[in-house]
């Protein structure tokens, strides 16, 4: 059976998207909205106002117990034992070779209760990995099917959400709390995938439709699809699993070392230590095209001398830069900032800049 013949899953918001005239595409086993009125318009609305993204396809797990005793600490790369309750932390889970099984966010709900958010397309594989490596299998629950999730992103996100949850202003970047919203207790975190001030609302899969509809009653709020989401995350320099991350790529190569904690044990650590000694096989480079031409995934990257040095993993037109931008893996030593590279067969010139093409101070600022 090929991927296209498989039954694609629909989120609880599917009929909302149809009602909003969304263009639907298959994405990681799900039927998801790629755009509503247009990718550039939705991008622009997220950067200047506020948009909603249906992220119900993502996976959510609960792990209970002491993270050291139950083995959770060794499944994830980042330090979690020191996390305050009501904080979240980004990291990865690795295989024995140091390759990335998935990137994820761990939320500490209680001293011994962990809420873990993973990618939609990898949820089943991730759940199997947790079940295999947790010392107490009963400590694990996959609650993905019962959870609805909406991302509320953009500079006006706080103003809009305050109308419904007055206490939300106290949330600092990468923290969360529980709030009453439309009669249900929901979890809201100050996190996102756009580089803007923003929040993610985790509700029951039943309540997600009324929340979506209620938020869209505000004239400042519009829906945004996967097309805008990819453009926004790429400008902000966020990795996308399946592009900058996969089971053959290590966090050292992907430029995500700061989300690994070598003072503890974790699966894949030995392989990473070896790679630290031998040096990574490649390194992730961010680059800006000299023109509006966008690099595309799998195009080759060439050095000034004409030799092939890597491959594009993601590329888009950047409205912020008014140029094409891209990420790609190149040979070690070929990612110096300022260096000129060329992408695609027709050798379009680009400059290596680093991956943070867009940064907005409001993302992490203190709010009230």
């Amino acid at each position, binding site marked *: 059976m090929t991927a296209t013949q498989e039954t694609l899953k629909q989120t609880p918001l599917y009929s909302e998207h149809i009602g909003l005239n969304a263009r639907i595409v298959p994405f990681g086993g799900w039927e998801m909205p790629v*755009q509503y009125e*247009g*990718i*550039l*318009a939705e991008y622009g609305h997220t950067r200047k106002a506020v948009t909603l993204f249906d992220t119900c396809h993502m996976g959510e797990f609960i792990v209970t117990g002491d993270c050291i005793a139950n083995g959770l600490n060794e499944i994830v790369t980042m330090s979690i034992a020191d996390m305050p309750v009501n904080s979240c932390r980004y990291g990865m889970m690795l295989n024995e070779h140091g390759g990335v099984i998935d990137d994820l966010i761990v939320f500490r709900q209680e001293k011994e209760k962990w809420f873990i958010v993973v990618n939609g397309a990898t949820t089943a594989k991730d759940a199997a990995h947790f079940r295999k490596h947790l010392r107490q299998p009963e400590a694990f629950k996959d609650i993905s099917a019962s959870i609805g999730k909406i991302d509320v992103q953009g500079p006006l996100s706080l103003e809009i959400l305050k109308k419904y949850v007055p206490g939300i202003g106290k949330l600092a970047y990468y923290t969360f709390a529980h709030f009453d919203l439309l009669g249900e207790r929901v979890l809201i975190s100050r996190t996102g995938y756009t580089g803007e001030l923003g929040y993610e609302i985790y509700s029951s899969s039943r309540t997600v439709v009324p929340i979506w509809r209620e938020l869209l009653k505000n004239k400042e709020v519009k829906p945004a699809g996967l*097309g805008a989401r990819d*453009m926004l995350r790429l400008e902000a320099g966020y990795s996308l699993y399946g592009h900058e991350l996969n089971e053959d790529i290590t966090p050292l190569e992907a430029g995500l070392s700061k989300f690994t904690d070598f003072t503890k044990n974790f699966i894949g650590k030995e392989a990473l230590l070896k790679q630290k000694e031998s040096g990574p096989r490649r390194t992730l480079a961010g680059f800006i095209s000299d*023109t*509006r*031409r*966008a690099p*595309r995934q799998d195009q080759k990257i060439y050095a000034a001398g004409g030799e092939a040095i890597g491959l594009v993993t993601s590329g*888009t*037109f950047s409205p912020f830069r008014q140029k*094409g931008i891209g990420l790609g893996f190149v040979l070690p030593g070929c990612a110096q900032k300022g260096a000129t590279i060329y992408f695609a067969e027709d050798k379009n010139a680009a400059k290596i800049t680093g991956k943070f093409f867009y940064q907005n101070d409001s993302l992490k600022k203190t709010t009230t």
Partner: protein
Amino acid sequence: MEVVDYNLYTKEHEWVNIEDGIATVGISDYAQEALGDITFVELPKAGDEVEQFEEFASVESVKAANDIFSPISGKVIEVNKNLDSDPGLINRSAYEKGWIAKIKISDPEETSNLMTAEEYLKFLESIG
């Protein structure tokens, strides 16, 4: 989706409008809608000799890059420079402000290889 009756069309969704031996060329409203937001146009150069149905420009959208084929043979005499800074003109005005190039045609009989608006509409219906 609009198909204006004063143009001729190709199966690759280019349009051409010929006046006094000069062909103005662009892509159809159907094409711009299928492409989505256009972010980059690689224009031909004035002076380029082009052949009918051969690649002479490319258009990139937020979704993909697409080659554009010349509907007619001849010499490029002018290109729409406004597309360099505002490629979205094609989305907003495919048949007017979003023209791509003007070509001095070398063989008027080539128009018999093109579709009238009526034929193009039928063609669009046939491809669903």
